Structure formats: structure tokens, C-alpha cells
């Protein structure tokens, strides 16, 4: 692996969304005299893939029924296509009959497939919100967190999206739900149980090199890459 990654670029600044500021909270029929109604989010995300720069899959969430073989094929081809993109290219590409929205955060690619009528810009927001959630949960999240706690990454995603649609726009609510579920796990298990890992376990990073965290240059931890 090449030593020393170039300084990554994510979004220029973290949008400071309050809990209610997320763009697609909807205002209902009582719209008169209130803030202008916001649009509904992108519908029918078909799948989301997370993979490293070497093409290793870190998370796969499929919202459409496909055979294992088809999933593998799609993953393989899409990973190749996205990895071949140059850094300055735009985040959208057309692939088969889908629109692909992708963004790289440090060493991880977040890649979503949406349908033709969907709004690409909102999908970028969705990806960013997911990264923010991970960051809040793991504290300065990096790829290793996703590797060693992959099931947590799924749980967080499942509190944010349901059936390919956004279910909760409030960061606070999502994280609260996860906390509660984690608590429930601890209560039902004695602490020696292996699958629980609420938050950071410093143990997992002992041997492996640490890569830069996914967001926030000020929060990055870099150790020498062995």
C-alpha cells in the first residue's frame, strides 16, 4: 500500500444542519404562512455500496431483490467503474439504466444507485448525512471502524434509511435510537459477549495502521503506516 495518502477532500465544509434544518423535512397541508415546503427525498434507492480504494467491499445494502450472483457482478463492475474515475470528475455517472451517485471520504467510497427520476443532489446529501451519523457514533470515524464494527454500520444505516427511503431526518433521533438498542444489548448480555462493541474499542486499532478519519481534517489521526 502506498504510504501517506494525499490530503483528502470531502465537502468543503460540514453543513451545519440543526436537527430540523435538514432539507427534506416536509411541512404539511398547513403550509400557508409557514416556511416554504421542502421537497421529499429521493425515492427508491436501489442499493448502497461502501468500498475501499482497493475495491474491497465494506458494506452492501440492497433494496431490490437480486440473486447473489447478480449482486456480485454488479458490485464488481460498478467498483471498477467508480475507481477508474479521476479525482476532479463530477459525482454522478450513468451506468446501465441507473444513475450512480458516489463520493469518496478518505479511503472509503460511498456509492448509491438511484432511479432515473430521482434528484442526484439530494442523494449526495443523504450520503453526507450517513457519514455524519457514523462520525458522531464512532467519534472521528475512519475506515477501520467500519471494518471492525460492520454490523453497527448496518444498524445505523437501518435507522436512517428504510426500504431505500429516508425515515428520520433528525441526527439526534437516529443516534438516540441506536444508543437505546445498544443499551438493550448490553442488558441482555453479560459483558463478556463478543458481538457487542458500543463505541470505540481502542483494542481494534492496536496492530493496524490508522488511516485518516473520514471527515474533518482537524480530527484526523495519523500514525505511521506499517
Amino acid at each position, binding site marked *: 500500500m502506498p504510504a501517506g495518502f494525499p490530503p483528502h477532500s470531502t465537502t468543503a465544509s460540514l*453543513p451545519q444542519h440543526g436537527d430540523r434544518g435538514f432539507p427534506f423535512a416536509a411541512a404539511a397541508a398547513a403550509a400557508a404562512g409557514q416556511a416554504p415546503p421542502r421537497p421529499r427525498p429521493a425515492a427508491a434507492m436501489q442499493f448502497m455500496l461502501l468500498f475501499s480504494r482497493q475495491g474491497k467491499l465494506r458494506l452492501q445494502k440492497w433494496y431490490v431483490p437480486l*440473486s447473489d450472483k447478480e449482486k456480485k457482478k454488479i458490485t464488481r463492475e460498478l467498483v471498477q467503474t467508480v475507481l477508474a474515475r479521476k479525482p476532479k470528475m*463530477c459525482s454522478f455517472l450513468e451506468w446501465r439504466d441507473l444513475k450512480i451517485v458516489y463520493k469518496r471520504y478518505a479511503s472509503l467510497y460511498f456509492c448509491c444507485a438511484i432511479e432515473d427520476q430521482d434528484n442526484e443532489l439530494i442523494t449526495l446529501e443523504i450520503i453526507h448525512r450517513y457519514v455524519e451519523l457514523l462520525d458522531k457514533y464512532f467519534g472521528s470515524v475512519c475506515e477501520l471502524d467500519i471494518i471492525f464494527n460492520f454490523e453497527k454500520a448496518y444498524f445505523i444505516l437501518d435507522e436512517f434509511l*428504510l*426500504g431505500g427511503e429516508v425515515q428520520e431526518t433528525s441526527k439526534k433521533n437516529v443516534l438516540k435510537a441506536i444508543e437505546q438498542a445498544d443499551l438493550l444489548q448490553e442488558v441482555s448480555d453479560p459483558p463478556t459477549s463478543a458481538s457487542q462493541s458500543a463505541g470505540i474499542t481502542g483494542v481494534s486499532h492496536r496492530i*493496524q495502521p490508522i488511516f485518516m478519519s473520514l471527515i474533518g481534517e482537524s480530527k484526523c489521526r495519523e500514525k505511521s503506516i506499517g
Partner: protein
Amino acid sequence: MVVPSLKLQDLIEEIRGAKTQAQEREVIQKECAHIRASFRDGDPVHRHRQLAKLLYVHMLGYPAHFGQMECLKLIASSRFTDKRVGYLGAMLLLDERHDAHLLITNSIKNDLSQGIQPVQGLALCTLSTMGSAEMCRDLAPEVEKLLLQPSPYVRKKAILTAVHMIRKVPELSSVFLPPCAQLLHERHHGILLGTITLITELCERSPAALRHFRKVQILRLLRILGRNHEESSETMNDLLAQVATNTDTSRNAGNAVLFETVLTIMDIRSAAGLRVLAVNILGRFLLNSDRNIRYVALTSLLRLVQSDHSAVQRHRPTVVECLRETDASLSRRALELSLALVNSSNVRAMMQELQAFLESCPPDLRADCASGILLAAERFAPTKRWHIDTILHVLTTAGTHVRDDAVANLTQLIGGAQELHAYSVRRLYNALAEDISQQPLVQVAAWCIGEYGDLLLAGNCEEIEPLQVDEEEVLALLEKVLQSHMSLPATRGYALTALMKLSTRLCGDNNRIRQVVSIYGSCLDVELQQRAVEYDTLFRKYDHMRAAILEKMPLVERDGPQADEEAKESKEAAQLSEAAPVPTEPQASQLLDLLDLLDGASGDVQHPPPLDPSPGGALIHLLDLPCVPPPPAPIPDLKVFEREGVQLNLSFIRPPENPALLLITVTATNFSEGDVTHFICQAAVPKAPLRLKLRLTYDHFHQSVQEIFEVNNLPVESWQ
């Protein structure tokens, strides 16, 4: 089994520590064996840990099907940890193709009705991710109950699960429609969000549901509502305008809202003013520093350019700026949009920009750009001279990327513009002198020099600076083309014929030409050899006819596919046969006649043998109207190509008023379900014996297909 099983994180570390693929496989296989054993033993305490490890291994691409049943057991367990991992496993390992998936229906039902909220959440999540149609039908009542439960956490999930269910089983719309009205009055964001989604889904599926929601003013919903509904669209106009002007665009989120507004405006029957507003928003997007925003703007403007052409025109300068983008997907969009914006008033300026783009654009855009420019030039050329200049420029810059008919088009164009013959030949001569590698350019130049060589040498032409060219230079250039390894055989043919024509146009003593012609009489290329031998014979035995034969070409009429096919013929066949396919012109038939005379045994079988060898006789024959030949027997159709549902048929007709003519119609049919796009069919007919060579290129089932084949089994009747 006394050995304690590995913790999940330890396994991950071990896998990552493997130095080779083989080592990794070994570690994983060993662990999977343990996991399998553990499953067999039915150890309930560590089952979740084992499954979690299996899920990790599955993500790396290894088989994990033996964990499917364990998912069921874990889901059925009462421990929350078990359920959490079990449901995750179900989502990753089970799908509706496996019969096993139905087995979790019961567990889900129990969890939905009796579980605590987090458990209900897990069940709903799983159902909405992998629920098949049967599962959805079975569990609809449970989900419906949860829609009106007090807890917002569960309700929002239930709503979105309902969305999934409606997508799987549209009949369930009737179940989920009634609660919607109440749900809309909720304050909780998550619930509202889900409800909007649900309503949208309902409306998309059944127009009858629309009645209930006309007053709802949510943008995406508006789009669907307004799609074919005048009244709704009108109410929305003001609102959309308001949103468009009041949205803060300093962040991407604001731009996303604006973009959604634009999409909505585009989809509903909005007032003209609103559409202009949408176009202007997109125009502003084009100036945004964020590449992604520019991309969606270009894509959307392309959709609008047909319907709101003048509004989009106003942003033409910005669009043209985008041609300079470094990102290829952006510059491609900009190219498409720019070509769509060309009209008769801006054609000169646009062509300048596009030609500049052609010189520097990435190679995969060259062909599209070149053909776009040529098409636009054909439609909007202000003057013939400008047209010729434009084509010339394209041929010089991107000669290898132009379509095959560019040569024919240009020669046609030049031939028809008599006042520009001198100008054209001079420009082409200059271009050729600089570069003989671009084949289409070389072919056109050679043809021109051959036809109008006298004008080239004549001296001044007003429109270009005076150029003194002498005969030897011209001949030397043509010889250079002949000898160059870069020249295609067709190009050589052009050059040789041009040389031959010059023998009548120039004043010199033709020795040089005769020499070249006789040398090529032993050329290995059969086509060239044949020509050279013919020309040589012309010099030696039929010199008195040479001037007549090599006269200036009459203009070939371009009137439809037949002419096109014949124009293509000229590329491969002898150039003299360019005149051949128009036998109604007496002059041409005279040539034709003489060809028969010259060719002798290799006579063109396409032309009826009874033609009288003497010129006068042929003329009389053709003009001899009272002589009505018997109606020819109909020639059977011929299927010549079939691939994956795409078929090509030939049908033959001899028009009764002109039996010398054979009309071949090529019909292409697509019987398959997939669309065929970018279909190009080209035909070439070498002179003798009668053969037909076809070349097809098209896109089908997302693949590029190219086929070249010869039709050897033409029906016998077509030969006569």
C-alpha cells in the same frame, strides 16, 4: 468442542493479517468449519457471534448459505442481541428467491404484534428490505395496526414499510389509503416524511387517490399531481415561484431544493413564465463552482431545449463556456446542448466555438462532435463557401472520425457550386500539400484536382491569395498520394483516376502520366491494376475517345436512399461507375456504353447485355419508349442477416419503365424486446460479378454490434 470460538473482532484481525489470498482462504475455511460445527451442535449462547462472523466472511465474497437457518433461530430467540444479528443476517442472506425466507414470516408477525419497540423496528426494517409479495400480503394487517400506534418511532417505520408493500403488492393500496389523511396532520418530521412518501406512492399507482390530496403542497408530490392536470398545475405556479425565489442556495442542500423545484416545474403543465424561471435557475447553476451542480444543470437543460428553446438560448454563452470543462462527462453534455442550440442566426459563432472544441476535445467525443458540426452545417449553412470551408476544416482536424458519407457529401457540394470550383480546388490543393494522411480529405482533394485541375493551374482566384502552381508539382503531389503507405486502396483509386483526368486538363505532354499508369498496370492491388490497365489501354488504343470519357462529371442527384447507396458504391467501386447508376441521363449512358466496350469480359452484369455497343444504338435503345419490355417476373425476397431478433431483408424490383435498373430495398426489422439504436447500414456493390457487401453497426441489448458480410446468394433473376 472445548476450544472457545473466536471473537468477531479477533477473526477480522486474523483475516486482515493474512498476507496472501490463499492464506486468507485458509483462515476463513478453518473458521467456517468451526462455525458449521457450532451450528450443528446448536449452541444457543454463541450463535449470534458465529453468525456475525459468517456475515463478515460473506461480505468478503465467501459462501454463507449454511447460515440461513441460523438466522431463523436467532430471530425466534427472545434475546435482543440474537434478534438484532438474526434480522441483519436475514437481510443479508435471505431473499425472496429462497423458499426459506417465508419461514421468518411468523416470527416477524409475532415481533410486530408483541415485541418491544426496538424489536418492532427490527422487524419492520427487515420486512421493508427483503419482504416478498407473499410476506407483504400476510403481514399487511399487522403493519396497518402499527400505523396508528402512539409511538412515532414505530409509526414512521410502519409507514415506510407500507410504501414497500404497496410497491410489491399494488392491491394493498386500498389498505393503506385511509390512514393517510390522519397521518398528514402529524407534527413529527419522520412521520410526515414517510407519509408524503406513502401518498406519492399511492398516487403514482392509482389516479383515483389523487382526489384526496389536491390541496397538498409538497413539491415532489406536486410533480406527480400536476403531470396531466391543468387545475392543479395552476395552483402550484405561485407556490413554485415562491419557493424558487426564497430558497437559500449557499449550501448544497438549498441547491437540492431548487433543483427539485426545477424538476417539478418541468414535469407539470406550468405557465410559460414559470418555465422561464426554471431555465434561469438552471442557467445560474451553470455558473456554480460546484461541478455536480453544473452537471445536473446541463442534463436538465438538454431536456428543456426542445420545448423552451428561446429561453435556453439566452444561456448559450454559458453553455459554450462549459465546452471547456476538463471533466469529460460535463463536456459531453455541453456538446450535446450546444449542438441543440445551433440555429440559423448563431450558426457562424457557434461553429467557431465547436470547431475550436473539435481541435482539443477528448478522442471519444471527436466523432460525435464532427458529425454534429457537419449536420448543423448542412442545415444552417449561410453560404456555400462557408459550408465548404467548414467541412474542409472538419476533415483537416478530425478526418479519421467523420462518417463515411462525408466524402460523397463534400464532392456533391463542390460539384454543385460551379462558382466555387476554382476556390475549392485551390484550398484543397493547399490542404493536401500540407498533409496527406487524413484519408477523407485526401480523397476529396484528389477528386477535385482531377476534375478541376485546369482551374488550379489557371492562375488567380479572387478569393484566395494567388498561388502559382505548375503542372509538375500537381502531378508530383498525386504521385506522392499514390505511393504513400498511409493511403487506403480507395484513396489510391481516387488519385490514379485524378491523374488520368489531368491528362486532358493539362497542357503538357502526358508522358509522366503515362508512365505512372503503366507502372500501376502491374500493381498487386487488383482494383488499381484494373484501372491502370484500362487507362493504359485508353492511351494506347482509344486515344481519340479519351477526352470525351474524361470530361467533367455531371452532377449526381441526391434524392434518397437509393442515391445514397449508390454514392457509397463509388467508394469501393471504380470511380467511373459513379456515372453508371444513373442510366436515365443519356450522357452518362454513353459513358456506360463505352465502359462496356472497354471492360469486355469483366462487363458489369448489372447492366443488360442487349445494349448496343455503338453509342448511338444505346441512346436509341433507352429513348425508344414505344418498345415496352415484357414485365419482369417478380424476384423473390432474400433474408440476408439475422442476429438476436434483428433481421435484414432484401427485396428486388425492376421498374417496368426501366428494366436496366435494379432497385434493391434493404429492410431492417427488430423483432426483439430490446431497442436498437445508432443503426447504420452501408452497402457497397463491386462492379463484377454482381455482389453485395453490407456493413451494419448498431447498439442492441447494451452492446455494440458490428457486422460485415457479403451476400453471395442473390437470386438469379437479379442478375439479368
